[in-house]
């Protein structure tokens, strides 16, 4: 599924845009001008990576500072232990689109439990 996100002109370098689908996806425009899309929710706890610290091709989670590689979704060090999903980005007619991955998302335990009707 290809979803329009926002106009490229509306997403300055160094900024992120959160797409409120379920689970949310965020699009990052790096200082070098590249565009990446990853799951917005940190795999550790319920934090929005769009609120994080973007540096190069990495975003640092705003809460506990695990860093995710925007290209691969890989995480560098605890407390987060699992990668985030990455999504394909397509820019068409000046509009950023993402093609959402069909892999299962790596949601943090607190949210995963909620989604499956758990008690957490």
């Amino acid at each position, binding site marked *: 599924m290809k979803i329009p996100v926002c106009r490229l002109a509306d997403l300055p370098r160094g900024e992120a845009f959160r797409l409120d689908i379920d689970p949310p996806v965020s699009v990052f425009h790096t200082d070098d001008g590249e565009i990446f899309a990853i799951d917005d929710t940190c795999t550790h706890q319920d*934090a*929005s990576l*769009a*609120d*994080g*610290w973007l540096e190069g091709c990495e975003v*640092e989670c*705003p*809460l*506990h*500072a695990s860093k995710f590689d925007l290209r691969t979704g890989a995480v560098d*060090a*605890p*407390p987060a*232990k699992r990668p985030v999903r990455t999504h394909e980005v397509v820019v068409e007619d000046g509009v950023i689109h993402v093609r959402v991955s069909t892999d299962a998302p790596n949601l943090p*335990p*607190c949210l995963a*439990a909620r989604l499956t009707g758990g008690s*957490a």
Partner: protein
Amino acid sequence: MRAVAVVGASLAGLSAARSLRKQGYDGRLVVIGDERHRPYDRPPLSKEFLAGTLDEADLALEADDEELGAEWLLGTRAAGLDRGERVVRLADGRKVRVDGLVIATGAAARRLPGAEGLAGVHVLRTLDDARALRDELARGGRLVVIGGGFIGAEVASTAHALGLDVTVVEAAPTPLAGPLGAAMGGIVSALHTDHGVRLLCGVGVKGLSGGEHIRRGARGSVDAVLLEDGRSIPADIVVVGVGARPCVEWLEGSGVELDNGVKCGADGRTSLAGVVAVGDCANWYDPRAGAHRRVEHWTGARERPDAAVATLLAGGAVEPGAPRPPYFWSDQYGVKIQFAGHAAGADSVAVEEGAVDDRNVLAVYRRAGEPVAVLGMNQPRLFTRWRKRLAAATS
């Protein structure tokens, strides 16, 4: 360097072991820790683990497939360092010969004198502490938390959510005034009263009472906290949250200079060549503050080992990069509290965003107009921007 020991098998020790391998060290690596557990994460102990929403497996700091090629000596305490022979002596009599040493022994919870042997009295630092406290909180009742610092406040918040009747006693006029300054300390600690948790400030604790009903074979239980002004606060459970002291006794007489923990440079180097210190036990020189600071926060214990290991492997020949301003977070009553920088040097603090009444605040601390620290309550996005600015401004 052919043999390196890391003493302390928690966040700072594990981070150092990782940094060693990442930075190319391929010799013998021994990790010594006096707890029996593999490295685990402490912050959830006062929050999700205590609340029962995370279990022990979730606390693991290592990835499932992680292989550091280290020898783990767990359940074993380091008892001394012999600088001449370069030997770490273990409490069980064993000796580990090392060329390099990373000190990562953290801190231990301070206890209340006179509370020994009274059931129902807890501190919270380790997984074993947290298990015991969790089991006791599950029975419900009246909880008195001694100390309104971060650990005390988090325990109060978690216990309140579990349905206990909670009172917090704080000796200072305002809780958290040390790390946050009086104005913001007052705003953050108002979260207690917002939620109906009693907060008694400016009064010290004289002692604990209890133990009158000692049955044979059973220890007596605490039944009240006695305050210096004569009041007695009934209690079924008491948590003592009065800070932590660095675990460095084992280094006395070793030649490693001690002063509120291990005194070290901005790169973690100690007074002994080939020895660095990291984490809660380390009193680092902070060039921004122009003074030594022992910072007891997660992010420092996670990040600073990179620099200390670089120093160790280079024999002290590297220039330390400026460390990022200290950063910590806390979760209380559903509010995400974040802080970066040093409040102590500030001459003003102003709320720049949000409203104090909503407990939704972004406050900036300044000295002579320059930002030196920032506090966020439920403001992760703005907080991160300010934290980044702070790092850039003062690096």
